């Protein structure tokens, strides 16, 4: 199936001389949730802004739904919804008017029933006649989302939607995102909360210094890069790992109270049962046993550090 978003060779050099993007190639599949990860200044916002038409690219080509964003900007833009990183609203307008304005601006016929449902989903219906200036920061963010969804986009960009947002709003937001995905809307989001990407996204792209470091299915990535670690808390501390256990790459921790065993999560033979058996034979008793997986966060940090 044709990707909904296809980016090839996109470069951006700002007037200041700074190269924010140095040749980006990326494809986003229809219907997926794609998380764009990267440290501050990586170029995530620049990339999104280019796709949406608020920043001009220096070179390259972007297709949205098969439409060139420059030559065929009407077709491309009418299926895009954008929630930018910064809140920017006409503060003197009412919630209802500003959302209706957005729908009209994107060339859609009025549909009060749809807008009502949208505002209800975002818990904004009670505030529809309030002026934006009277709303709290979290509610303004909801208005930004309502505006972006007002024209029923097929491809939604959420640039750090959960930065500075409380638990309630974050939960509501993800509920909305899931519902949109169920309707077939493709979502591209950036976030610094990596657990979020891990929980929500189907695929992640890691970008740093204007280059794509990696694009991968979340599941594959966790498998490929993920490590598991077994922590054994011993009855009696030991000074050194006995020579009989040399077959396993073990480490001592907590002043000899713990043995750590790190292994590849993907491997079929993890060596864990054999290790436990051997420990029993050697008469090394342990009072506790714990295993943990490395998080996407650790994978991400190791990727960015390596690059």
């Amino acid at each position, binding site marked *: 199936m044709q990707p909904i978003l296809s980016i090839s060779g996109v470069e951006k050099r700002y007037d200041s001389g700074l190269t924010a993007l140095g040749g980006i190639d990326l494809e986003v599949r229809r219907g997926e949730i794609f998380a764009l990860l990267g440290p501050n200044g990586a170029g995530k916002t620049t990339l999104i802004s280019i796709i*949406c038409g608020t920043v001009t690219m220096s070179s390259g080509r972007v297709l949205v739904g098969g439409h060139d964003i420059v030559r065929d900007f009407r077709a491309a833009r009418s299926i*895009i919804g954008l929630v930018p990183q910064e809140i920017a609203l*006409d503060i003197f307008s009412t919630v209802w008017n500003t959302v209706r304005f957005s729908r009209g*601006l994107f060339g859609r016929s009025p549909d009060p029933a749809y807008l009502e449902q949208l505002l209800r989903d975002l818990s904004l219906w009670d505030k529809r006649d309030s002026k934006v200036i009277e709303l709290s920061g979290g509610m303004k963010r909801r208005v930004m989302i309502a505006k972006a969804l007002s024209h029923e986009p097929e491809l939604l960009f959420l640039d750090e939607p959960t930065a500075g947002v409380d638990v309630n709003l974050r939960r509501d937001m993800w509920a909305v995102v899931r519902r949109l995905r169920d309707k077939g809307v493709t979502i591209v989001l950036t976030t610094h909360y990596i657990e979020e990407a891990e929980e929500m996204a189907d695929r992640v792209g890691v970008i740093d210094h204007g280059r794509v470091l990696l694009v991968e299915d979340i599941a594959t990535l966790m498998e490929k890069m993920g490590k598991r670690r077994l922590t054994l808390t011993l009855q009696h501390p030991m000074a050194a790992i006995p020579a009989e256990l040399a077959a396993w790459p073990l480490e001592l921790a907590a002043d000899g109270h713990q043995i750590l065993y790190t292994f590849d999560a993907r491997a079929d033979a993890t060596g864990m049962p054999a290790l436990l058996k051997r420990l029993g034979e050697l008469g090394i008793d342990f009072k506790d046993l714990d295993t943990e997986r490395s998080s996407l966060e650790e994978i991400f940090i190791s990727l960015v550090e390596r690059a």
Partner: protein
Amino acid sequence: MLRINHRGMWAIYRTEMQRAFRTIWQSIVTPVITTALYFVVFGAAIGSHMQQVGGVDYGAFIVPGLMMLTILTQSVSNASIAIYFPKFTGTLFELLSAPLSAFEAVVAYVGAAATKSVGIGLIILLTATFFVRIEILHPFWMLAFLLITSIAFSLFGFIIGIWAKSFEQLAIIPSLVVTPLTFLGGAFYSIDMLSQPWRAISLFNPVVYLVSGFRWSFHGVGDVSIAASLAFMTCFMALCLAILWWMFRTGYRLKP
């Protein structure tokens, strides 16, 4: 796919007009009071010494100039703030990301600014009828001049709004260029009353052509020919459109 995003244009036009109606009293009362003041000062105080200019009562003589003065400043300030404010608050991103061509955006914003100017012009005319008897010899041309001037200077204002990087810059063109040129452009006198070389110099002032053409539509006499007036307006509008086309094509001060 839709060829012209008329709904998008309407959304902008309507929102801009709503903004004007939110301050409707301000929009009406200000020009009414200003006009009344001008009539008291110029019409009564000076007019009593001048009586007639070119066969027209001084009070009636200044009406076209007075209308032009307000239309010019209002068009420039309305249109410039309409585009500068979204730039300032960051809401411009929505316009830039919408499936709307530059031409459509300009027509919608400039259309709204020009509508307001025409409205204000007519309010001034109405106010003036309380002070003097006004006869309009060429009503069709009067309306045409009113409309063209409003559009042309709204386009000019739109350029200023895109160009401006601060509120100071936004205010500087209307107060430093538009108002002086209008005052010196024969709004309150006929340039025939000036001695040389001021008379010749005045011919380089673009506003002279506007006021003169507009005055001709009222009283049938003007300082320069009606053809010169129309030619000037056309050139000015074409120039503004060309600059705007270039601004949107290059994203000049609109997008990085």
